[in-house]
């Protein structure tokens, strides 16, 4: 090819490439710091507005809701009819009056998000978190148990139903069961919680690379001014044969980042397994087994500080408190279980049938 034509051809090709790259540049636009600062989604917030759920077993109305596949200790089939399962506004009178309730607030919603493990003691791990409404400063929040709580009375963000805000964010929850064992007379078991609050609850999940398992940290906070367990029939839910726990507060702590909760199934028996690993530390051997103190090395000091925090930090402990227990109308006073620390747990379910 003559040199002049080569030059023309190359110049043409460069021109085409330049044209194409020009077109590409026109499609892309750089994001400024200002633009980027407006992108702030960390997770997805969920709020249920005007929410009611109710379903129950009622053959006369073509409704079926039952639990089967259970067997009594004598080998008889157990059929549990779910007479009613409901979530509705507080004041539902055992689920007989179903008014709408909100679950979660716009500024404190239920949330699904990803957390950076580096801030939680899990280096280079992404942590999935599913959480309930948060707790807030006591000057801004509401008492967790009081159905007439006003702002500034406690740490819960969910508000009770009131004249100014009829829905509230504290639902009544209930489950009414009718247990049928073989040909025996059906027995009832009902659980009702009034004005329930789950603020501060969360479930964190991540992959434990060392154990090759899914690891979890679970906090369940559950507050209700009255939790009632009764044997009343569905037609007469306010009968006397009930245990009422007034001012019921449960703060359950299962697992944490350095002592995770593992949920799994056994690879041989197929049974459900629940495990909380025993507490340990890489420098545990630098703690004196007699005095319980550091052996004086830097490693020993680190290990001592770790265990000192583990045994003194209330964050790792579970509490269940009740202001009053009433059995069939007789008051038994208050009950408290406080500072329960799960140091090791290994549970395996298995089938009792041969």
């Amino acid at each position: 090819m003559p040199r002049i034509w080569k030059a023309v051809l190359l110049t043409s090709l460069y021109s085409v490439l330049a044209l194409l790259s020009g077109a590409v540049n026109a499609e892309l636009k750089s994001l400024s710091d200002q633009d980027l600062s407006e992108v702030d989604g960390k997770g997805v917030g969920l709020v249920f507005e005007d929410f009611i759920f109710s379903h129950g077993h009622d053959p006369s109305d073509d409704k079926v809701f039952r639990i089967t596949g259970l067997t009594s200790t004598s080998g008889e089939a157990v059929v549990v009819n779910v007479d009613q399962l409901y979530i509705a506004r507080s004041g539902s009178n055992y689920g007989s009056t179903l008014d709408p309730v909100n679950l979660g607030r716009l500024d404190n919603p239920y949330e699904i998000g990803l957390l950076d493990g580096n801030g939680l003691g899990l280096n280079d791990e992404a942590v999935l978190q599913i959480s309930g409404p948060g707790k807030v400063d006591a000057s801004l929040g509401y008492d967790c148990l009081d159905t007439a709580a006003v702002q500034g009375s406690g740490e819960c963000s969910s508000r009770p139903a009131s004249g100014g805000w009829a829905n509230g964010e504290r639902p009544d929850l209930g489950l009414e069961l009718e247990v049928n064992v073989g040909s025996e007379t059906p027995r009832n078991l009902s659980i009702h919680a009034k004005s329930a609050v789950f603020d501060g609850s969360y479930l964190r999940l991540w992959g434990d690379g060392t154990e090759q398992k899914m690891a979890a940290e679970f906090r369940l906070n559950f507050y209700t001014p009255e939790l009632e367990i009764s044997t009343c029939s569905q037609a007469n839910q306010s009968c006397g044969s009930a245990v009422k726990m007034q001012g019921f507060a449960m703060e359950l702590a299962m697992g944490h980042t350095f002592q995770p909760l593992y949920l799994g199934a056994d690879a041989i028996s197929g049974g459900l397994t629940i495990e909380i690993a025993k507490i340990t530390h890489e420098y545990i051997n630098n703690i004196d087994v007699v005095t319980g103190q550091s052996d004086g090395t830097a490693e020993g000091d680190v290990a001592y500080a770790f265990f000192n925090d583990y045994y003194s930090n209330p964050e790792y402990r579970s509490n269940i408190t009740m202001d009053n227990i009433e059995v069939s109308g007789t008051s038994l006073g208050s009950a408290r279980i406080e500072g329960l620390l799960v140091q090791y747990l290994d549970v395996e379910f298995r089938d009792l049938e041969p």
Partner: protein
Amino acid sequence: MNVMKAIYLFVVLVFQVALANAEMASIDDQDLSEVTGQSGVYLTGEVSINEQGGPLSDTYFGDCSDPAKVCGARISLQTEQDGGWFVLDNIKGSIAFEGLTLQVRNITSGFGGDGALFNRDVIEIGMPESLRFDDFQYTIATSSTGRPSDAGFEQVDMMTVEMSGEVTLEGNLLVFPTP
């Protein structure tokens, strides 16, 4: 001849680039302002799962007329390497819904005073006006292997839940990014 081929190729390339450019046209604010579809989506439907039994038939799965076998769908999930499996087994029946809505909503008021402070858009999923289960059931279980046909299969069934009839479900689910 080679030079002619090269020139021909060049002309074709330039032509194609010109063509490609001709396909792209920017939409100005005026055009965009005329796009008004904002009323959302209204969905009605029925989802049936293995009502008459699935396509598999072996010693564990079968058609629904054989009470000794399960005939619903199976979902198994493993949370541990070489461990057992969480199982939702024998899923069958149908769920019919009418009037599930999906729309974008601007919240500026309500919610006991929270709406005015929030002052943003959310995705609103409206619960269906009617939700009906027909012979819907599932079994919660754990098992030693993912598939019932695998060697050493053992399963512990915890319970079977059966649902039929109209369910009361009202309200809206609001979805939005959180800071």
